[in-house]
């Protein structure tokens, strides 16, 4: 039996039954899952959580299912890496990387939201799962649906890059290309959700789906020894993850799992070519003005973010702020992360690190307090972004003389070889 109470409107506070609803009937505000925290507090303990498997379902009391999960049982509990080398470069004392680039099965944090959405969809009796997507979400829906044997459909703009189509097709999903813009794909999906009664993970299952992101925050707090960091930097697309990380910390506090109160400042990162939330935060505005995305960080390229207003509020309320980075800064940060910590993040990771670097250099994030960087996807998925930005390897003949010639010509670059 779960501890979920109802769906609650974030604007007017009205309660709705736990069905496939996502918009308040009265004020059109977004719906969010509400829990019975008093009951959860009675049963949940650090020991209970620690006794469970290394996956995100160790926090199942705080996730929106009635029973046990049936999709993505191995998702989550990704490494929180203490990033000493990167800390030295940035000149900070305590730096961690929450690394969802190695989340299972599809190498992004989307596996968290999708496994919650699909488990809940099955509880509600849906037979078909679907989404509109251009990247990580499509991969995750296709992979998780394949693993649990659920029929699934992924809708994409017809002119999408080949590599992204292949990365979804391989799971045997029904990929449907739509002749139209991404907006038109979305509009069609809304209609299909209504007419065919399918579970679109980020449309009619949205309130449950979004809750999956909390596990990212739960894990950070547990892996820090049941503490929350002083600062956390989060990439923003629709703006949901940043809100849910803070919600996770607050829930841990509410049910008595933390010794100290949550004092985390939350910072949102976007690409300069798609920065509607950061722009509003910097200008001190409440309303998010939509933009036309133009950035290599495609997984963050949402010009009209659904949760932008709430993301901005989260930053403001915690004393954090937003920062944006150019495409070149994104690439430089991707390389820096790989070179210092051996972590190959997708472009969104470059956005996060690039923004963090600026916030530290500008004195916004102090150098002597704990900082967590949120890495949400794997660099292998966006390799084309690096094309032309790395030094090509030299090619030599297969003989030792050619190698020695290369060593002498390379000077300091081949240090170990030169010494030999």
């Amino acid at each position, binding site marked *: 039996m779960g501890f979920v109470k109802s769906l609650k409107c974030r604007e007017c506070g009205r309660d709705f039954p736990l069905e496939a609803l996502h918009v308040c009937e009265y004020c059109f*505000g*977004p719906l969010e899952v509400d829990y019975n925290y008093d009951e959860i507090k009675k049963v949940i303990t650090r020991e209970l959580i620690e006794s469970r498997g290394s996956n995100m379902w160790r926090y199942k009391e705080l996730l929106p299912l009635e029973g046990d999960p049936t999709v993505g049982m191995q998702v989550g509990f990704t490494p929180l890496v203490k990033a000493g080398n990167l800390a030295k470069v940035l000149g900070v004392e305590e730096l961690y990387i929450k690394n969802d680039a190695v989340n299972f099965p599809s190498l992004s944090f989307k596996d968290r939201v999708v496994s919650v959405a699909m488990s809940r969809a099955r509880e509600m009796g849906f037979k078909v799962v679907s989404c509109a997507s251009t990247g990580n979400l499509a991969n995750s829906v296709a992979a998780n649906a394949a693993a649990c044997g659920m029929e699934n459909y992924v809708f994409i703009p017809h002119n999408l890059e080949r590599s992204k189509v292949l990365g979804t097709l391989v799971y045997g999903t029904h990929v449907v290309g739509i002749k139209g813009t991404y907006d038109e794909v979305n*509009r069609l999906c*809304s209609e299909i959700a209504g007419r065919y009664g399918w579970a679109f993970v980020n449309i009619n299952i949205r309130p449950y789906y979004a809750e999956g992101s909390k596990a990212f925050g739960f894990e950070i707090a547990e892996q820090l020894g049941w503490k929350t960091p002083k600062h956390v930097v989060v990439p923003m697309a629709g703006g949901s993850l940043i809100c849910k990380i803070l919600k996770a910390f607050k829930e841990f506090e509410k049910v008595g799992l933390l010794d100290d109160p949550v004092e985390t400042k939350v910072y949102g990162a976007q690409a300069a070519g798609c920065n509607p939330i950061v722009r509003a935060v910097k200008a001190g505005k409440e309303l998010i003005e939509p933009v036309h995305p133009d950035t290599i960080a495609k997984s963050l390229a949402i010009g*009209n973010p*659904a949760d932008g207003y709430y993301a901005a509020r989260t930053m403001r309320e915690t004393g954090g702020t937003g920062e944006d980075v150019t495409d070149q800064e994104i690439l430089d940060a991707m390389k820096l992360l790989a070179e210092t910590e051996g972590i190959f993040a997708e472009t969104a990771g470059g956005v996060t690190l690039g923004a963090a670097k600026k916030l530290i250099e500008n004195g916004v994030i102090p150098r002597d307090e704990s900082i967590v960087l949120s890495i949400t996807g794997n660099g292998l998925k966006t390799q084309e972004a690096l094309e032309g930005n790395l030094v090509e390897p030299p090619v030599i003949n297969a003989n030792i003389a050619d190698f020695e010639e290369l060593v002498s010509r390379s000077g300091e670059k081949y240090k170990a070889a030169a010494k030999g």
Partner: protein
Amino acid sequence: MDAKKRYYLTYSKELVKEPLIYQVGRLFKVETNIRQASVSEDLGLVALELVGPEQEIDKAVEYFKEHGVKVEPIELGVIGE
């Protein structure tokens, strides 16, 4: 049979003073029902329900678009990535 559709309208600075919702109710056979609105000096957001024959709703949406209002079905706003 009447249809019921929900939209977010985004008005730019130049349009904030225009009575477009009133005009839509006058020109087409649709009922307009504002559920939420937030207007600042340079941007307006309105959550609007339109009730009426499907073709009339389509015409009303076209009218908004022709006048430079960004019109999105409510469901659209929730797609990520």
